[in-house]
């Protein structure tokens, strides 16, 4: 084997090992977001108050929500979350036990089976006022605290899949996401086609490098 071929083989092996390590690393994964930017804090939520916002797209495979909370440096009190459907039926609920540090908090829910449009409500059972991150000046959105409707404000909600997953375990979900928002003639095979094209490009390069070094 020529030196160049050895380099190609060693290099590709190194890439494969690196890719394997990355693909097998587990982490919490999102099932979706409501795309509201977490740029500011919305109106404060006092003890006992409930904040709600409609038109949330609650994705299937969600088992938690992630919110950015400011509790004025104190531990966050107990929070209750509820998602309801158009007819008022409860889709999923969850709660955060008191004592979490402020910042990004993960509130577990019962597993959501199907994607649906839902109304998100969060009640502050804790002793002190909290603030949730979101948009505070965004035309076209709104939320309510108690019976008080607040225009142009909305909370950022991130939906999380169960537990921790590796990229490999997420392949099915990724293939599905790749198929969305595409041309009709490529939706189903967008991810396999991208992988095939990458394989072609790498093979072409390897062919050239090994042929010309011979």
């Amino acid at each position, binding site marked *: 084997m020529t*030196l160049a071929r050895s380099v*190609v083989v060693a290099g590709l092996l190194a890439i494969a090992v690196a890719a394997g390590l990355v693909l097998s690393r587990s982490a919490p994964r999102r099932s*979706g977001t409501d*795309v509201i930017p977490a740029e500011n804090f919305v109106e404060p939520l006092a003890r006992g108050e409930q904040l709600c916002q409609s038109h949330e797209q609650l994705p299937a495979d969600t088992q938690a929500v992630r919110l950015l909370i400011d509790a004025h440096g104190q531990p966050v009190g107990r929070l209750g979350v509820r998602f309801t459907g158009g007819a008022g039926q409860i889709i999923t609920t969850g709660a955060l036990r008191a004592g979490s540090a402020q910042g990004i908090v993960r509130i577990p829910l019962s597993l959501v089976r199907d994607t649906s449009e839902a109304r998100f409500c969060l009640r502050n059972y804790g002793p002190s006022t909290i603030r949730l991150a979101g948009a505070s000046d965004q035309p076209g959105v709104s939320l309510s605290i108690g019976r008080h409707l607040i225009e142009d404000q909305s909370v950022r909600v991130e939906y999380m899949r169960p537990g921790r997953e590796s990229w490999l375990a997420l392949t099915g979900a990724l293939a599905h996401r*790749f198929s969305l928002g595409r041309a009709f003639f490529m939706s189903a095979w967008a991810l396999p086609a991208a*992988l095939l094209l990458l394989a072609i*490009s790498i093979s072409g*390069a390897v062919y*050239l490098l090994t042929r010309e*070094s011979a």
Partner: protein
Amino acid sequence: MNSRFSGPVSAPPRARTVSPARARARAIRTRLRIVPRAAWVCALVALANGLAWSLITPPFQVPDENAHYAYVQQLVQTGDLPHPATPAGALSPQQDATLSAIDFYWMVGRPYNPAPFTDLQQHAIEQVASEKLSARGTGDALTADNNPPLYYAIEAVPYMLMPGGGVLDRLALMRAVSALMGAITVLLVFMFLRELLPSRRWAWSAGALLVAFQPMFAFISGGVNNDNLLYLAATGILWALARAFRRGLDRGGGLLLGAFLGFGLVAKLNLLGFLPALALALLLLLRRSWASPDARREALRGAGAAVLLGAAPLVVYELLAHLLWNRGAVPIDVVTGRGAAVLHKFNFRGELSHIWELYFAPLGHMRDQFPHLLPIWDTWFRGLVGRFGWLDYEFPEWTSWTVLGVAGALVTLALGELARCRHALRRRIGELAVYAGLLAGLCVEIGIESYHTYIQTGGQFEQPRYLLPMIGLYAAIVALAVRFGGRRFGPALAAAVVVLAIGHDLYAQAITIARYYA
């Protein structure tokens, strides 16, 4: 036996009638054979990689892709070029509704927001496609307004290939055409290196493959953006120049140079920055052939062809813009913008200082115009290492430091090769000056636009992709570096560099997938 020399022993063979079309096809095939197979393979690699990027990057997430699409739509739907509106006008209802449905406005500049994840979003997208909304807007194509029309005229073909298609269907085909332009650019890089650095074929392949796997280049070639045609034209100019400096300027070479310049200018006006160095090139080439009357005549023909062919498309565009499309060739005054008040007063010394500081540290008397960043590192180097989407995600900083180490090693090797070939270099110093002049001209042109954007809006104009017209020179540095290894180590060095580039490209695609789909 060759039939030309066989006597008329029997009845002469009946001449085979070849149709003109077949003869033309054969002539094209013969001409294409001058391109080595390795160049085609490099182009195929670039095409596959560009198409992969076009699938990985969600619709309209390549910079200004919405504006470029709007330009094509305006051209096809009305036969007219865009007309800027004040303030910026609406796009067509069809495009605007599609952009809303795919959450475009929520994704741009917000790296924490992914592409659509749910079937509900897909349902909304399909609903927009089924509504058959109007494809005619106000005629405004936003940031693409000032561009000449050639790239958009080419992209009109895939647009029209899907008469009943939705915005996303058309965009996918248009992206494929851009990827094809990227592939041709890589082929031209190979041809440029073959003329520039003869005798080491693996160095040509290494340089061309480096371009094919350069993440920023591949990302742009997977999107609808007229930069793709600009890169092709600029690389074609490099090839034509190297060819002329190696073989002498003749009419064919002049036509080649003029053709790339001509269509490049009506692809994007940034190519105007090349003109001073191209004038220098023609002077040097004429001077070289001045001693011999035959060579002088041929060189004059070549220079004339280059000038005529280089200028003609721009002149035709200027005339058509005024007579047919009722707009200027550059409809938005780059100083006064869309009629908005200018934030800062124009100052020539300020402009010179701005251009200088885009690439170098300020000199003693200069006011620091970029106090919060070092453009050579933050804008250009880190940007070219990889800043994607609408400049809203990039590699972690350690990646740039790693690439800096590799780039430093490659530049050192390239300088070593230049030192080793210093005798040949001395003979080609004029040619080298021309390439340096092209780069300088482009940098000045970018600087002028950057300054005018600054005084008009206070915003930042420059983006790393604006330097990619010189990607042929990047490939030349790599080719020089691997040549330093000689016949024994050169191919292994080339292999190592290309494998690193593959890793870099895959890493870029991985962070793109993480950005939009995870």
